[in-house]
C-alpha cells in the first residue's frame, strides 16, 4: 500500500514525539526537545520510544529536531494541534456484534504445510 499521509502525520505528530500537550508554550517545546536530544545522545532506553494512538513509535534525533522546527511555525503547529486531539495512548478498537471481526486462523498456513504461522494483526 502507498504511504498514508495522514497516518504518518499522526504517528509522527510533534506533540506525541515530544510528549507534550497541544497547549504547551514555545519555551516548553524547546526545553523538552533539548531534553530528548540529550537522552537520545546517551542512548537512554526511556527516550527510545514514544506512544501515539497508532501504537509505539521509535523516537530518533531527526524526528525530535523536525518536531521542534514544525512547532516553531505557527501555521504548521495549528495543523499538528488539530491532529493531536486524541491523547497519547494506543487506541482500543471497539467491536460491536454487528461488525465484529471474523476469526483469523493464524496457523492455517502451517497446518496446511505451506508456511510458518502468522502473527496476530496489530496497528499498522
Amino acid at each position, binding site marked *: 500500500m*502507498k504511504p498514508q*499521509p*495522514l497516518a504518518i502525520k499522526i504517528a509522527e505528530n510533534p506533540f506525541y514525539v515530544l510528549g507534550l500537550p497541544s497547549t504547551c508554550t514555545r519555551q516548553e517545546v524547546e526545553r523538552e526537545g533539548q531534553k530528548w536530544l540529550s537522552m537520545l545522545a546517551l542512548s537512554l532506553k526511556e527516550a527510545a520510544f514514544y506512544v501515539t*494512538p497508532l501504537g509505539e513509535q521509535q523516537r530518533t534525533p531527526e524526528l525530535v529536531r523536525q518536531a521542534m522546527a514544525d512547532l516553531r511555525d505557527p501555521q504548521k503547529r495549528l495543523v499538528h*494541534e488539530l*491532529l493531536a486531539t486524541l491523547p497519547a495512548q494506543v487506541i482500543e478498537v471497539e467491536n460491536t456484534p454487528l461488525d465484529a471481526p471474523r476469526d483469523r486462523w493464524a496457523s492455517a498456513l502451517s497446518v*496446511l504445510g*505451506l508456511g*510458518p504461522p*502468522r502473527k496476530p494483526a496489530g496497528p499498522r
Partner: protein
Amino acid sequence: MFPIGAVFILVRVIANAASGSSTPARAPATSRGSYSFLSDSGAFVTLVLQVFLWAAFTTSTTALLAQSWGAVLIAVPSFVALFPWYTTRRILVPLGLAKTAYQVCRLSRVTWREDKPGGPALAAAWALARSKNPSAADIAWVEAKLDQGSPALQASGIVAMGLLAAAKGELTEARRLLESIGAFDERIATRPIRRIASSWLLGDAAAEGRWEQVLQITLSKRTPWSRTMWLLDAIARRELGKPMSTLGLWVFWLMAPRRLRTFRFVALVARRPEMQQHAHALGSIRVFPGAPLEAALYRHCSALTQPPRPAELVNVALAWERALDDRSVHHRLEARAAVIGASNAASAIDEVRALVEAELAPMVTGDLAQLGKSALPRLVSQAFDARRDELHRELEDRASRLDARREAGREVPSTEEWRELQITIAIYRDLCALGGIGERSLAFSVIRDRLVNYGAWLFNARTEKPVANAVFRFLHSEAVVLGDEESAALNRKNIDCGL
C-alpha cells in the same frame, strides 16, 4: 528373470531401422504441454525404469527383513529414485532442505519430467516458504536456478517465484503471482502446481480472516479438490453465516488430515451460532457519537489497525466531514490561531481535508461501488474519483511502457516479464472492480492491442510460448465478456498456435 531391457533396446533398434532414419534431433521443448506423464515423451522408458527400480527396491527390502543390513544401500536410493516427488514433499520439504529437495526432484520422471527446472525450483521454494527463517543465500540460489537453463517460463516457475516471495515476507507479490496461475492452460498449470498454489492462497486467506476469498477459491473449477479444502470451505461458510450445520462442520473435520492440529480452530468456529448473518462484506454504516474531531480521529486510527472495509471507510469519511464542518472545531481553531499567532485557521482545515482525501483514495476498492456512488459521502466520492483517475493513468503508463519495450526489443528476464504483466493486469482488474461494464470496456481498449502485440512478441521473438498463451487466454476471456468479437477471434487464433 525376463530380460525386459534387452528386448526394449532390440525393439527400438528394429523400429529405427524400419523408419529408415535415425531419430531426428528434438527441438528444445518450450512447455510441458501435456495433461499427464503418459503423454510425455519418454513415458515408456519411465515405465520400464520404474519396473527395474521397483524390483531393486522389493529385493533389497526382502533382504533387509532377513537382517542383511547392507541392503539398505540399495533400498533407500531405489526408493528415492522410484518416488522422488513423494520423498521430496513428504520428507525434504517439511525438513526445509531446499537444495536437496531441488536435486531429488530433478530425478522425477513422472510429475516433473517435462518441467525442469521449474518443478525442482518449486520444491525448493516450497521448502523455504515453510521455514521460519529462510536464508537469503538459499533464496538467491533458487532464483538463480529459475533464471538459468529453462527454454521458457512455466507455471511451476511462477509458483516457485510466488513461494519465494512468501518466504521473503512479500505477501502481496506472493498473492499476485500465485493467483496468476489461473491464466495458464491446464497442460502448463498441471494439477500438482495448481494444488500447491491454491493451498497457499487458501491458507493465506484463512490466516487473514478473508473468508469470502476462501469460498471464492474453493468454488473455482480450477481448484483441485482436497480434504483440507473441503474443511476450509465448511469453515468459511460458517464464518460467513451461510448454511453449514455444526454436524457437517465436524464431519468435514473428521475427513480432513491433521485433525489434532485443526481441532482447536474448528471447535472455536463450531461455537458460533449457525446462520448468523454478519454485515461483514460491507460492515455497518453508523454515526459515531461524541466530540466530532475526537470521533473522526478515533475512527480513522481504528480503521488503520484493521484491514479496511467499505463501510468503515464510509464511517471514517462521515466522521471527518462532521468534524471538519463543525462550528465548535472552527471556533477552537480560530482561538488557538490567535494565541499562537497563526494567520489562517481555515487553511489548516483545508490541509487536513486534503490529507484525509489522499489517505482514503488508495483504500477505495470495488466493494465500495456496491454501495452506489450517489450514496457515498463527499469525501469518499472525491477519493473514489481520484482513485479511478490514478488507476487509469497507471494502466496507460504501464501499457505504454510494455509497448515501448517491445518495439525497442528490450528484453528482461522472463520472471520479470511476468511480474510486469501481472502488475498491469492487477491494475486493469482494480479498474474493472471500481466501475461497471463501461469502465471495463474503457480499460480494455487501453490494453487490447498492446497486449496482443506483446504476446505475439513473447511467442515469436522470445519463445516464451506458455506465457504468451496465458496472455492470449486472458485477452480472449475479456473480449468474450465485453462482446468484442474481433478481439475474441484474434485471440482464439493465437491460443490455437500452441504452447
